[in-house]
């Protein structure tokens, strides 16, 4: 029966701390009224004269920790850099990090905590679509602000979310155009893990191949998440002999898929393969020798050669070790705090409505990926890049598109 006691015991101090925090917050805001009647402090958010609190909501544990660690690190790096350069509106950023534990209701629960108990001014977080979908109603209800870093399937546009990764059409259309032109590809084999992002992506790809490129889809297939046997698939690919295999396999399946492709003799000298799900992070597990000569489509690669990126990579490695790698989502995570800073400074306030109103049109010329700009639909203008994978696991960019307008609800592709 200690459960009752323990339960109450640990809840009580927590409540006390919370109310203590609230008290000090109130006190602080009262004092600030005396000092400077600063509008930035009166938003009901956790903002004092010297600090502003933000939340970070990723999975530090569970199956998604593999992917989300990079985003956590990049967001931290950006926040530290902003603090070092004087903060936002003269305030240092304080971070409350919550663990979503790869569990969607936990994400929802923690989002609620961050917004309702901690009153954070912005949240940088989520990775999977499922976690974003779980927190979305909470952000909309509590009028929070989420910076979401992952490339995703689109079909969403919320007032309370800024999407710093690419939506599906940005990632897919330009790369399909390129591969059709460069390789003269006419027939495509589409395959992915069985969930919404690959399925939506493949749907868009199919429409584009059939209606725009005049090509043919000779196979479309999905395997359960975590599947490790791809032997039958490699045989089917051999049977259909597509010009291009277009792949969106994720997680542990990814590693198994490429190892088994290689083992079945499907290598880049015989088969062109374009993937939209392999970044530097995945490469660690797959191993460059298994993907040599295949193509990956992303908006960012660690090997991009521009001053912004060189600086970013150097600073990231200085902080997290020289062996750390930076994938597309990691970079997109890094953009979040900077975009927020720019929007807050433009709005002159931390108030979510004002920040949201100020966001469209925000430009970031210091982005590692080059130049990005926030669109009215809360996604970013960005370039699509195609890289050839080298035996040592690095990516060599072979094609770079113009800036592409984000279009989360593409007409004719739904």
């Amino acid at each position: 029966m200690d459960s009752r006691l323990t339960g109450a015991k640990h809840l009580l101090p927590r409540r006390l701390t919370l109310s203590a925090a609230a008290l000090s917050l109130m006190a602080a805001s009262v004092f600030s009224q005396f000092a400077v009647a600063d509008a930035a402090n009166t938003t009901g958010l956790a903002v004092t004269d010297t600090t502003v609190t933000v939340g970070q909501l990723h999975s530090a544990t569970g199956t998604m920790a593999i992917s989300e660690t990079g985003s956590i690190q990049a967001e931290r790096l950006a926040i530290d850099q902003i603090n070092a350069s004087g903060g936002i509106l003269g305030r240092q950023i304080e971070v409350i990090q919550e663990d979503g534990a790869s569990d969607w209701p936990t994400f929802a629960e923690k989002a609620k905590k961050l917004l309702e108990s901690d009153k954070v001014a912005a949240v940088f977080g989520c990775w999977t679509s499922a976690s974003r979908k779980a927190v979305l109603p909470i952000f909309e209800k509590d009028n929070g602000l989420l910076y979401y870093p992952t490339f995703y399937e689109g079909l969403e546009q919320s007032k309370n979310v800024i999407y710093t990764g690419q939506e599906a059409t940005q990632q897919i259309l330009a790369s399909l155009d390129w591969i059709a032109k460069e390789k003269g590809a006419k027939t495509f084999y589409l395959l992915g893990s069985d969930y919404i992002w690959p399925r939506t992506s493949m749907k868009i790809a199919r429409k584009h191949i059939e209606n725009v490129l005049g090509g043919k889809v000779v196979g479309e297939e999905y395997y359960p998440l975590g599947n490790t046997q791809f032997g039958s698939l490699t045989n089917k690919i051999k049977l259909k002999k597509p010009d291009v295999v277009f792949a969106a396999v994720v997680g542990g399946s990814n590693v198994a898929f490429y190892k088994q492709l290689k083992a079945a003799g499907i290598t880049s000298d015989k088969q062109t393969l374009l993937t939209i799900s392999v970044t530097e992070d995945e490469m660690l597990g797959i191993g460059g020798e298994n993907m040599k000569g295949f193509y990956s489509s992303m908006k960012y690669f660690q090997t991009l050669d521009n001053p912004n990126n060189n600086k970013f990579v150097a600073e990231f490695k200085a902080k997290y070790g020289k062996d750390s790698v930076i994938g597309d989502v990691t970079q997109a995570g890094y953009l979040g705090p900077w975009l927020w800073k720019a929007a807050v400074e433009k709005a002159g306030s931390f108030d979510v409505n004002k920040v949201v109103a100020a966001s469209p049109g925000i430009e970031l010329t210091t982005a590692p990926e080059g130049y990005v700009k926030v669109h009215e639909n809360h996604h970013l203008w960005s370039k699509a890049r195609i890289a050839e994978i080298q035996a040592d696991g690095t990516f060599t960019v072979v094609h770079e598109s113009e800036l592409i307008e984000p279009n989360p609800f593409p007409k004719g592709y739904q």
Partner: protein
Amino acid sequence: MDVSLSEFGAIAIMQGFNGLSVFCVLLLMALGLAIIFGQMGVINMAHGEFLTVGAYTTYVISSLTLQYFPAMQPYYFFFAIIAAFVIAGALGWLVESLMISKLYHRPLDTLLATWGLSLVMQQAFRSIFGAREVGAEMPAWIMGSWAPSEAIDIPRNGLFVMGLTLLCTVTIFLMLYRSRWGLQVRATMQNRVMSRAVGINTKKVDRMTFALGCGVAGVAGAAFTTIGSTGPTAGSLYIVDTFLTVVFGGAASLVGTIASAFSIAQAQSLMEFFLSGSMAKVLTLSAVILILMVRPQGLFSSKVRK
């Protein structure tokens, strides 16, 4: 579709090989469990994590080799397999003596306790090796394909896993049915009290059996680095398939496990070829369940009245 007859033949051969290779993967996964579950009645939910131990052992040895004896790189894999067996087996020994030995009279509770163990082990992998997947550098001879003719590619890692599976199965078969130790194991399984009465050290037998099962899981884990991923949760991908294989075969029967791995693998591989991957998985699992409902004791049940 323009597929010539010879090409079709080549695909058929490769698909046949694929079926065999899935069979070997399943069997290798299930062997360790078949020993532990079938012979001891212990449900080891941490079986997948023992696989992962083997996989990480391979990774560590591959890194060490690369760093200190680069010349040995082509051969390290054999050492890795032996090391995986020893380390996973030793860990199994430890787990048995600290945990399982206290729970033999409560079979369902071993299931729960080993589930807790699997959580702890997963987090331990994460703390030691990081949350990200790691890739062991494979020797060149094991990767790629062997092409006996223009159109046929036989995966070398598949061949390797096949050979290893054969070796393990034969060894275990001999040990269980042709050795004194095997006799003791089977006696203990059938009647623990009686075995003790005739002077068998059942405690020692249990410990050995469990350690052997875990060691085989370690070998499987090492072998799977050639076809799959190595990460903290990699082992849990295999666990449902593994359990179903053992249960479908009839728990106490090694032959049953082989037969069930074979039929599940063939069904899976064939359906994957003609249907989509996701659907094949659901259909295979459902078929297994349906058959289990008709024949609840599995394909080959031992004749024990219940």
